C-alpha cells in the first residue's frame, strides 16, 4: 500500500510519468543490446534505466524548473547516447580493458542516479541539492561516469571519438544548465 501511495502521491507530475515511460523504454533497449551483443555492462545500463523509471514516478515536486523546451529533448537524447555507439570493425585485443572502463563508468553513473533518488530528473530542475554518496566526490558524478564509460566505446572503435565529443558536449551543457537551476 505504501508503494502505491508513493506513486499516487505524485500523480500531479505528468512529466515524471512521461519520463518514467521513456526510461522504461530505454531499459528494454538496454536489455535487447545486452542480449544481442553479450556486453554485460548493458545490464548496468538496464538497472540505471529501471531505477530512473522508479524514481521519476515517486520523485519530489520541483522547487524551481525551467519551462519545457528543446533542452528537455536534448537531455533525453543525451541519456540515450550510450546506445548510439558503433561496435568494433575488427576483433579487439582490448576486450578486458574496454569492459572494465565501461563497467566502472556505468557503475558510477548508476550509483549517482540512485543517490539522487527522489530528487532525480532528466531535464534540469531543483528538487533539492544532494551532497551525499558519490556526490561528495564531484558535483556531476553521473556525467563523469558516462564520459568514462564511453571512453571504452572509443577504444572499441576509434570512429566513436566523434560521438564521444558530441556526447561530452551535451553533458557539459546539461551540467551548466543544472548549475544555473540549482544556484
Amino acid at each position: 500500500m505504501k508503494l502505491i501511495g508513493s506513486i499516487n502521491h505524485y500523480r500531479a507530475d505528468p512529466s515524471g510519468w512521461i519520463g518514467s515511460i521513456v526510461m522504461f523504454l530505454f531499459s528494454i533497449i538496454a536489455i535487447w543490446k545486452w542480449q544481442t551483443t553479450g556486453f554485460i555492462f548493458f545490464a548496468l545500463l538496464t538497472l540505471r534505466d529501471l531505477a530512473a523509471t522508479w524514481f521519476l514516478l515517486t520523485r519530489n515536486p520541483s522547487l524551481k524548473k525551467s519551462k519545457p523546451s528543446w533542452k528537455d529533448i536534448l537531455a533525453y537524447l543525451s541519456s540515450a547516447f550510450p546506445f548510439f555507439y558503433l561496435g568494433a570493425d575488427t576483433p579487439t585485443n582490448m576486450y578486458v580493458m574496454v569492459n572494465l572502463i565501461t563497467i566502472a563508468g556505468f557503475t558510477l553513473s548508476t550509483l549517482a542516479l540512485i543517490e539522487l533518488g527522489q530528487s532525480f530528473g532528466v531535464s534540469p530542475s531543483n528538487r533539492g541539492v544532494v551532497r551525499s554518496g558519490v556526490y561528495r566526490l564531484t558535483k556531476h558524478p553521473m556525467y563523469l561516469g558516462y564520459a568514462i564509460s564511453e571512453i571504452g566505446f572509443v577504444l572499441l572503435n576509434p570512429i566513436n571519438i566523434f560521438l564521444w565529443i558530441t556526447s561530452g558536449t551535451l553533458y557539459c551543457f546539461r551540467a551548466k544548465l543544472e548549475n544555473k537551476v540549482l544556484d
Partner: protein
Amino acid sequence: MKKFFQILTIVLALVAVTQVITSSPEAKADPHSEPGI
C-alpha cells in the same frame, strides 16, 4: 528502495567484472555477430 538499488548495482558490477576477467578468449570478441554496440 534506494538501498535495494545500491546493493543491486554493486553486486551487478562485481558480477560483470568477474565475468569479463574469467571469460574465455573466444567469447572476448565476436564483433561480426552484431554491427553495433
